[in-house]
């Protein structure tokens, strides 16, 4: 995705200079011709051999790889018609020219990658059929022409209000696209097609972002908040039903949710209260170890076997207690020092778990062997290990855990958002902003910091108890520093202080290495690179909270101009 973002973002948005020697109308025509050629090419054969990227060798029968380009082409044509043509009014609100650019450049990258893959896998460029070359010519024409297709939307999107049923329809359609898009993406067996689809999805997302589409969707979502959150939940709930009993993707989905719930706890500490915690994985581990020790596993070390809901409460409370214990002395230091202390705490937790094996202390954790063979959860006779058939669709073990985790996620999200929008949340943000001033305004700084630590740890511990059963075993090497770093990366990548951002960040960090095996080897390198690019181009995270958006883009020209005007007027008045 970074390949799509960087060329777009480095170009400053001044429409005065020409980057390609084309007049605006010629550029428009070139882009339109390119789009038509691209659309035509999708009905032709791209490849001589039939074993590359699905099957691209049949004419008049576009497969998924070609359909993506068909969609790109059609979208570009529609967007072009808003630049000059019958749909002009749309361009008053949305920067459709930017959408054309994003889609065109995305398409060019996409086609180039596809042709390279065809040539590489079937032994040379000879195997690229005329359809493939036509697609290349079309997409390159689009990419070149689109540089001079510019629009300047002026309307304030807050005032672009459609009838509420249309808006709700937009939300529903959007969520449906997300559901089927995710299901389709996860269902792609080969990494090559998957990477192409990621390029396509990236281009779509970028087109939406650049054309102010996301901003408008944000307004719609906040106007229809209930519909949106309910819809999001329904989509998440329906997801297992699209998988036809396959466990592979559901396993990833459960990983994502556990990761996201933990990261949401971390988001309280880092995103709201502004305390950098580098040992957060220890709290997840504490919950997992409690669940393992109290489980009916033959290797469990504690005799007490309470029902799971009690285990969950005990695990969460143990975590919260650890948070208090680590928090009360260390929260007196701040900034870098706090980060170092929490980093050390994470390591202390891991090493302690490694050593509580009966030789160096009481045998609680079986040391490095951990506690294996943790049994499946069983709620009132509902066995989480078995496959259940609902409405003809089999739901496997991971789907069962997925539903449980979904409920936990809903609870955690509710806790997070409600705390955020309350006296306590305001206190946290105030502490993050200026601790001394917060104290001087009567905010209970120490208490709130401690509560952020304990509350975040509570949520992580809750997720940990389920993780123990899901992973079947618990061992110290699951809770290394790198995991804490990944949690932090998910929060930063997705957007500090937001719920949706954390889920997006968690999905990206967990999904990509699973789907792209070649990424798995270089994932640290790639994620590092991704974070550097994020810090450069979008420091507020993929899904930014209103507040942080303003924070990082405060050099808003419009606002600055307005303030300047007021100042000048005031000075003149004062002189007079």
């Amino acid at each position, binding site marked *: 995705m970074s390949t799509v973002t960087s060329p777009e973002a480095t170009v400053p948005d001044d429409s005065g200079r020409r980057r390609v020697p084309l007049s605006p109308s010629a550029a428009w025509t070139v882009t339109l011709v390119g789009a038509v050629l691209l659309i035509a090419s999708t009905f032709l054969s791209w490849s001589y051999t039939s074993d590359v990227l699905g099957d691209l060798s049949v004419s008049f029968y576009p497969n998924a790889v070609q359909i993506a380009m068909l969609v790109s082409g059609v979208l570009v044509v529609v967007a072009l018609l808003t630049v000059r043509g019958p749909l002009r009014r749309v361009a008053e609100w949305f920067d459709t020219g930017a959408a054309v650019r994003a889609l065109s450049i995305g398409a060019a990258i996409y086609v180039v990658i596809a042709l390279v893959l065809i040539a590489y896998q079937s032994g040379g460029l000879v195997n690229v059929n005329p359809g493939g070359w036509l697609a290349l010519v079309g997409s390159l024409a689009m990419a070149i022409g689109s540089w001079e297709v510019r629009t300047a939307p002026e309307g304030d999107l807050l005032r672009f209000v459609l009838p509420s049923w249309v808006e709700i329809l937009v939300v529903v359609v959007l969520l449906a696209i997300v559901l089927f898009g995710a299901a389709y993406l996860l269902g792609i067996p080969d990494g090559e097609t998957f990477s192409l689809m990621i390029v396509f999805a990236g281009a779509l997302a970028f087109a939406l972002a650049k054309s102010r589409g996301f901003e408008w969707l944000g307004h719609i979502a906040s106007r229809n908040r209930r519909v949106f959150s309910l819809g999001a939940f329904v989509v998440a709930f329906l997801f297992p039903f699209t998988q036809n009993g396959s466990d592979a993707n559901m396993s990833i989905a459960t990983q994502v949710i556990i990761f996201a719930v933990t990261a949401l706890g971390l988001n309280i500490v880092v995103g709201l209260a502004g305390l950098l915690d580098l040992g957060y994985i220890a709290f997840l581990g504490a919950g997992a170890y409690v669940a393992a020790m109290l489980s009916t596993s033959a290797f469990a070390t504690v005799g007490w076997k309470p029902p799971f809901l009690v285990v969950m409460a005990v695990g969460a409370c143990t975590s919260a207690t650890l948070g208090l214990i680590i928090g009360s002395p260390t929260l007196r230091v701040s900034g870098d020092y706090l980060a170092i202390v929490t980093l050390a705490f994470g390591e202390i937790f891991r090493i302690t778990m490694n050593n509580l094996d009966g030789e160096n202390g009481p045998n609680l954790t079986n040391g490095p062997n951990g506690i294996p063979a943790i049994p499946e959860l069983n709620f009132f006779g509902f066995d989480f290990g078995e496959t259940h058939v609902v409405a003809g669709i089999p739901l496997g073990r991971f789907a069962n855990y997925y539903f449980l985790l979904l409920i936990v996620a809903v609870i955690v999200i509710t806790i997070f958002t409600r705390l955020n929008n309350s006296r306590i949340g305001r206190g946290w943000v105030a502490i993050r902003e200026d601790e001394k001033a917060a104290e001087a305004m009567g905010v209970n700084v120490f208490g709130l910091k401690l509560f952020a630590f304990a509350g975040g740890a509570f949520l992580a511990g809750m997720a940990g108890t389920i993780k123990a059963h899901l992973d079947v075993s618990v061992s110290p090497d699951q809770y290394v520093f790198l995991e804490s770093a990944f949690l932090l990366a998910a929060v930063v990548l997705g957007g500090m202080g937001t719920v949706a951002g954390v889920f997006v960040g968690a999905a990206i960090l967990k999904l990509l290495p699973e789907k792209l095996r070649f990424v798995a080897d270089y994932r640290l390198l790639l994620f590092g690179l991704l974070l550097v690019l994020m810090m450069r181009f979008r420091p507020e995270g993929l899904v930014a909270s209103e*507040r942080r958006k303003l924070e990082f883009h405060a050099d808003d020209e419009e606002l600055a101009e307005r303030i300047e005007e007021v100042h000048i007027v005031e000075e003149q008045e004062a002189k007079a």
Partner: protein
Amino acid sequence: MTAVDQSERTAAEAAGTPVLQATGVTMRFGGLTAVNDVSMSVHEGEIVGLIGPNGAGKTTFFNCLTGLYKPTEGRVDLLGSQIPPKPRAVVVAGMARTFQNIRLFGNMTALENVMVGRYCRTGAMAFTSIIRGPKFRREEEQTRARAQELLDFVGLGKSAENLARNMPYGDQRRLEIARALATDPKLVLLDEPTAGMNPRETQQASDLIFKIRDSGMAVVVIEHDMRFIFNLCDRVLCLVRGEVLVEGTPDKVQSDPRVIEAYIGGAEDDEDEDGTAVDESDVSAASDESHESHEGATE
């Protein structure tokens, strides 16, 4: 004892217990005495000015009053009872302040800034915040309404949704006052409320302080703008080298030769007071800096 002093004394006695009574406040940093045996009383509905050259210890004295510093000696009574030197306890007891170098919560909106000021007067805890019962909703609504009311009071009603950091300098000063007022104080301490303001904004600040006084609060103001302070205050204290040099009505202080000397003749001596001088000038430099960076942002 002059006649002026006498009349002041009687007026004070008539007013009953002073809102603020600082007795013998002394603050030493190591070998340096920044504030030496300063006593001050403020009565209901009174505006008291605190002047003095840079490094005289005015802000240090403020910090002692509001619990940011723990005074080495002396006591501070608010409404007749001693208050512990902890910022939170001070606010709860009814004394709020603004800062010389504006310290708003930059990335919160103006309304949220003021709502934070309501923190110590509201009681919703974690559990009630999550459950959101009717009591919580009512309190939240009241907090919001009160915050909006205070923004209207200082004349920022229309900027409620703006980020504090993006507001013009004068508005930031007024927002800080609104945030202080949100704590329901009996006494407001304003540290250079007109620093960096143009004459028109200074006039507005002056009107605002009178409005605050008229709504029943006492005000203490630190300021360098003499015209502003002598127009505004009922009583003025001049602090030099951590000690009260003169106290009295604006007329009396204005005409006192020692005050004039402290400001003009004694300028060189200030440099010798290195510790305090550095402390104060640091703060004022920070204030200048924040002012400049703000101006930079708006250009």
